[in-house]
């Protein structure tokens, strides 16, 4: 369909082709200081409200403001949106917005052939080309031959649109990301209202800046509408999503919300002891503004104090949490052992990142599974739960809290940087959809014994302030029932086995493992955590080709669901894609004597569906 619109000068007319598409992936890329994350999140909220299904992936450097123009200073935000249900932020993109040559160079390899590039030509000067290590200006040779290139002098057009604001040229140029956003809104037929509202709310205290951003956004939109540069406008229809109320949520937000919801549901005050660490910090930030829930956050002096203050708060009757990433997890290890010895409820959240050591702080990995399941001194079983999508982090945090309270134990929740920063629309649950959380408070001071066991081997919780229940706990081995310090050999054996039995018994209290696809098949792709979306997309594609493939995604890593072993046996071959060197494969092999094929990727980048699809096809071809 083509329509004709009047151009800015009111005389000429242009012809616009209107194209319906199902599925689009856009990558916004620029310098760390160019505001690409903001542009991306604005495009995301508008797209969510339009009703598309979507998935996002921010990809930014660990430097806050890397030297401008450099390849390592490029910050990107990818959004995949669709009229269908989708599970990943997309392998490759259809449209690249490149605010400078470095952004072009870093991202070009993942742009579909024939894809669109919107370039800020103002930044393609000798200095920036050199910083991006381009010997020849890519606009002048055939580098971009196979793409649709839109050359737009974004900086100067922004400055021109903002002439009357009285801002300096440098200040005006700061609004260029809004100009770019405006163009993209026109190109993908999205309304500007939500962003305009947001600008007013965010910059309300600084009306000049608010005005500048508003003008830039509108100028970008008009530029798309009026000039000859753009001749195609795309439309992505709303997706057929289940009915209900939705919001967009990142994994870290969802984790924080799950923690607060668990506290409300359990009727306990919440406490978070935490030390800022990438990529977990947003959870602490998010919760620090939830004080109206009585939720207390304590920014500790270090990781150890983060977990130890949480243990102290748990002793005092709070539903206590600590949040961290791999290196911080290493520091908390001893204290997690203490929590399991004193059998107090505690949830430890590890937002995994590339390791070992400082590793790749801003990049996701799934390499802390061994650490979570096995990484403590002594026989130290800790339940481990993993979230598999941004919104899934809410349910992960809630489930971890439920287990921690019911079983009086520390529980580890694993998420990762990809889930933490990625976002998706979330069908909001009703309060009544959330399972009840039981709190095992001691009730009778006459018969109270701190290490008495109930029918699921959990001990009663007596909190300071409760008269008649005074007792002492600590890291030394406990005598069964009384909790007194005991070095008795048989008691130690008994207690070690009791703690193991208690955690193993949780298998009877968690959801049975489900499978997506046939109950018996040639191949089951088994995953955990953040690789869910890529695996599910790959399996959908394979199933569409009538391949005999199923998807098993494990959310409980310790203990495993009780039907998992039997389920794994019903497939001729198991493929386990993991962003580590095969840790789940190792655990499944050890637990069930299965022989899975491990498929590993440790590049600081998530799996793409195509990678998994290709690997699965290789295996299927040998069967």
């Amino acid at each position, binding site marked *: 369909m083509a329509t004709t619109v009047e151009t800015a000068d009111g005389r000429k007319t242009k012809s616009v082709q209107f194209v319906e598409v199902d599925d689009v992936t856009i990558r916004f890329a620029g310098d760390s200081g160019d505001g690409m994350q903001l542009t991306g999140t604005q495009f995301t909220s508008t797209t969510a409200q339009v009703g598309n299904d979507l998935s996002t992936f921010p990809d930014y450097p660990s430097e806050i403001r890397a030297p401008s123009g450099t390849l390592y200073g490029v910050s990107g935000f990818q959004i995949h949106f669709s009229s269908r249900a989708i599970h990943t932020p997309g392998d490759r993109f259809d449209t690249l917005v490149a605010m400078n040559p470095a952004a072009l160079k870093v991202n070009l390899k993942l742009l579909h052939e024939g894809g669109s590039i919107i370039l800020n030509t103002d930044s393609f000067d000798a200095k920036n080309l050199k910083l991006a290590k381009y010997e020849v200006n890519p606009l002048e040779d055939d580098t971009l031959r196979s793409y649709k290139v839109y050359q737009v002098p974004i900086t100067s057009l922004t400055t021109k649109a903002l002439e009357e604001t009285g801002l300096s040229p440098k200040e005006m140029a700061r609004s260029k990301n809004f100009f770019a956003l405006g163009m993209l809104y026109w190109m993908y037929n999205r309304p500007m209202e939500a962003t305009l509202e947001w600008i007013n709310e965010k910059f309300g205290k600084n009306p000049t800046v608010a005005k500048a951003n508003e003008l830039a956004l509108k100028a970008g939109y008009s530029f798309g509408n009026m000039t000859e540069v753009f001749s195609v406008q795309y439309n992505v229809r709303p997706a057929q999503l289940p009915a209900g109320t939705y919001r*967009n949520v990142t994994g870290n937000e969802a984790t924080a919300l799950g923690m607060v919801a668990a506290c409300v549901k359990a009727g306990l005050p919440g406490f978070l002891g935490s030390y800022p660490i990438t990529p977990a910090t947003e959870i602490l930030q998010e919760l620090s503004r939830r004080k109206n829930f009585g939720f207390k956050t304590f920014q500790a002096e270090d990781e150890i104090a983060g977990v130890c203050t949480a243990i*102290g708060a748990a002793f005092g009757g709070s539903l206590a949490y600590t949040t961290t990433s791999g290196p911080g997890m290493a520091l908390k290890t001893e204290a997690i052992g203490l929590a399991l010895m004193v059998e107090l409820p505690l949830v430890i959240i590890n937002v995994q990142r590339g390791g070992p050591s400082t590793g790749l702080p801003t990049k996701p990995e799934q390499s802390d599974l061994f650490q979570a399941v096995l990484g403590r001194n002594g026989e130290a079983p800790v339940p481990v739960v993993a979230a598999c999508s941004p919104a899934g982090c809410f349910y992960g945090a809630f489930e971890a809290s439920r287990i921690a309270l019911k079983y009086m134990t520390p529980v580890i929740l694993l998420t990762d940087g990809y889930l933490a920063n990625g976002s998706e629309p979330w069908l909001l649950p009703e309060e009544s959809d959330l399972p009840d959380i039981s709190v095992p408070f001691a009730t009778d001071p006459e018969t109270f014994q701190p290490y008495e066991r109930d029918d699921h081997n959990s001990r009663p919780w007596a909190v300071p302030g409760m008269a008649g229940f005074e007792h002492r706990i600590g*890291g030394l081995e406990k005598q069964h029932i009384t909790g007194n310090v005991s070095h008795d050999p048989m008691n130690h054996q008994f207690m070690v086995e009791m703690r193991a039995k208690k955690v193993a018994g949780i298998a009877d209290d968690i959801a049975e493992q489900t499978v997506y696809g046939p109950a018996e098949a040639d191949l089951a792709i088994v995953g955990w955590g953040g690789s869910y979306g890529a695996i599910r997309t790959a399996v959908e594609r394979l199933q569409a080709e009538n391949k005999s493939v199923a998807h098993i995604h494990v959310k409980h890593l310790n203990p495993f669901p009780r039907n998992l072993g039997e389920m794994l046996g019903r497939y001729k071959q198991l493929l386990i894609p993991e962003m580590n060197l095969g840790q789940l494969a190792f655990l499944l092999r050890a637990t069930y004597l299965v022989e899975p094929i491990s498929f590993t990727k440790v590049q600081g980048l998530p799996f793409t569906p195509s990678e998994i699809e290709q690997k699965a096809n290789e295996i299927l071809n040998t069967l």
Partner: protein
Amino acid sequence: MSNEEKNTAINDQIKVLTAKDLASDQDVRWCPGCGDYSMLSQLQRTLPEVGVKKEDIAVVAGIGCSSRFPYYMSTYGFHGIHGRALAIASGLKVGHPNLTVWVATGDGDCLSIGGNHFIHALRRNVDINVMMFNNQIYALTKGQYSPTSLHGQKTKTSPNGVIDHPFNPMLIALGAEGTFVARSMDRDPKHLKEMMLAMYHHKGTSFIDVLQNCVIFNDGAFDLYTSKETRDENVVYLQHGKPLVFGKERDKGLRLDGFRTQVVSLKDYSENDLIVHDNKSKELAFILAHMNDQPGFPLPVGIFLDIERTTYEEELGQQVQTAINKQGAGTIHSLLYDAQTWEIENGKN
């Protein structure tokens, strides 16, 4: 009802505790003659006096000989891991501000492995009472030097003498802006109890450095200050508003000469010339903390500093209350809907 009647009525409701009520049923397993016994019995005597209910008392410890302390109290108790007592106690008090929280820690637990938690607890001013049992040795691991061991001290890991310069606990506590900083000794139970009472009444982190004799690995380390024969000549007791006088005959005093302290004879000077102790003065606290660095000066014992600053948990509690007043108490619905939301009906937008 008269005040007296009121008190009787209250006492009828609250079972009056005795020191014995605060002893647990566990055998105390410190070495015979250990200074820790003195601390335990003084705390057991102090708490009944202040009228706090047993269930509202929690004792938290790290690792070390002294850190077995909680097991011997019949209150709530938590024996933590090495160095972390103050972090655990901070979380306990912040999460549950009604409790009276005491911490038993040692010179290694508090100043070495737990040094970071120590300085941060002090600056935050969480209302906990920290008793540091300072025996200048690692005793539970059987005799290695600690961060307060003296330079040159021979221990199992310093056969040729300690090279490390020792920490001055008073200076660290003052440097970290502690609001209550005091020193006492195991061999002066009366003074110890007096200090514990002051700690209980101080709002904010109270820190006391207690010179504690380890009979096995560092016996006699503090004899100069604790034995009856030498104490008066070598210790100056700090009393708020009183001049700093010491000596068997109370014939010596401390005066300031510019920024330096001087030991003077009261034959040459009158009490009016001496430093009058002021435990509200941060400046004087630092001077006193430095004083015994030089030979010939007595060791100050007592409250160096006792000042007020809002406690961490009070301010956090106020923030919570303000948030509730402003935004209303949160519900699951308000939590989930605190963002832009949109409706999808019947599977369509």
